[in-house]
């Protein structure tokens, strides 16, 4: 089922869903790279890279900010060298949240979240497309959120960015379909990651009560679906969203 033998890049891969996804691709026999943005992620990135190396596939990690166009160009050049060719599978997973009710939201919080969660994905897609068109094969998987579909109190910036990423997903899917490139979204619900841990306790409990499967998901449960979407088994799927959210959104 897995897309073995491909070159995969996962953004925001040092921890959480990104790390689980990088590892799942590596265990399936793909060369895997990831980036991480903040210097404080160094220890986690080192740990993730060691886990990737232990699987025996070519792997690499780079500290690069996805909203910096020059850094993104550099990242994909590094990936090409380290993985032995252009990236075949891109997972746009890097995301931040800076919650506040919209009335109280700072300009910087709006801009930062849109920059990382939306512009970052745009820049990474643009950076991989030439290689994918040249090989007439590619898989792009964008990690979105139920917030994109049903909104989220206190996270208008995040919901807007993820809804924007869905628009990008569908538009790009149309643009590159004829080249054998598929572009899909995976929408994880509430997952045990730091991004969710940062949520305030009351809101988290409230959301948990709304999950039909009555529990948070694990990063591995998302990673498995992302690997599936990039696999030959999902070859007739593009512009779609797979909801992996315990029944939260039911779209």
């Amino acid at each position, binding site marked *: 089922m897995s897309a073995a033998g491909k070159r995969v890049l996962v953004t925001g891969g040092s921890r959480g869903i990104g790390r689980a996804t990088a590892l799942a691709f590596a265990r399936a026999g793909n060369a895997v790279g990831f980036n991480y943005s903040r210097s404080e992620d160094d220890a986690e990135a080192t740990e993730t890279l060691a886990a990737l190396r232990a699987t025996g596939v070519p792997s690499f990690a780079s500290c690069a900010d996805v909203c910096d166009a020059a850094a993104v160009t550099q990242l994909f050049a590094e990936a090409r060298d380290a993985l032995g060719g252009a990236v075949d599978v891109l997972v746009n997973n890097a995301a931040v949240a800076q919650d506040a009710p919209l009335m109280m939201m700072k300009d910087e919080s709006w801009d930062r979240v849109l920059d990382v969660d939306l512009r970052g994905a745009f820049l990474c897609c643009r950076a991989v497309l*030439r290689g994918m068109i040249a090989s007439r094969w590619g898989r792009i998987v964008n990690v979105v959120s139920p917030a994109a579909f049903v909104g989220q109190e206190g996270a208008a910036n995040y919901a807007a960015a993820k809804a924007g990423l869905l628009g990008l997903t569908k538009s790009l899917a149309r*643009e590159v379909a004829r080249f054998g490139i598929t572009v899909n979204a995976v929408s994880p619900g509430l997952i045990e990651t730091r991004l969710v841990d940062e949520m305030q306790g009351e809101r988290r409990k409230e959301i948990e009560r709304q999950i039909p499967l009555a529990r948070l998901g694990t990063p591995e449960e998302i990673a498995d679906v992302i690997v599936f979407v990039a696999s030959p088994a999902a070859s007739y799927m593009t512009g779609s969203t797979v909801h992996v959210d315990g029944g939260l959104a039911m779209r």
Partner: protein
Amino acid sequence: MDRDHVRSEVKQLLVTGLRLQIPAAEIADDVPIFGEGLGLDSIDALELVVLVEEQFRVSIPDEDVGRKALASVNALVDFILAERAA
């Protein structure tokens, strides 16, 4: 590199790369590559950008440059020669 040589390479690339159903020799130098001319669309242009960049080692970074460079065979030849001279 001489203009006639680049021109024939460009036409050959259009035919083989974009799978045109006409012989390279029948492509007029000034016919628009996209739209009415050769019947190619703006998405075909993406593949042409990749092919031209690869074969001629030039960069067509964005829509503005692409629109001019890919206007016609002549325009593309001019662009390639100018980029290589730079």
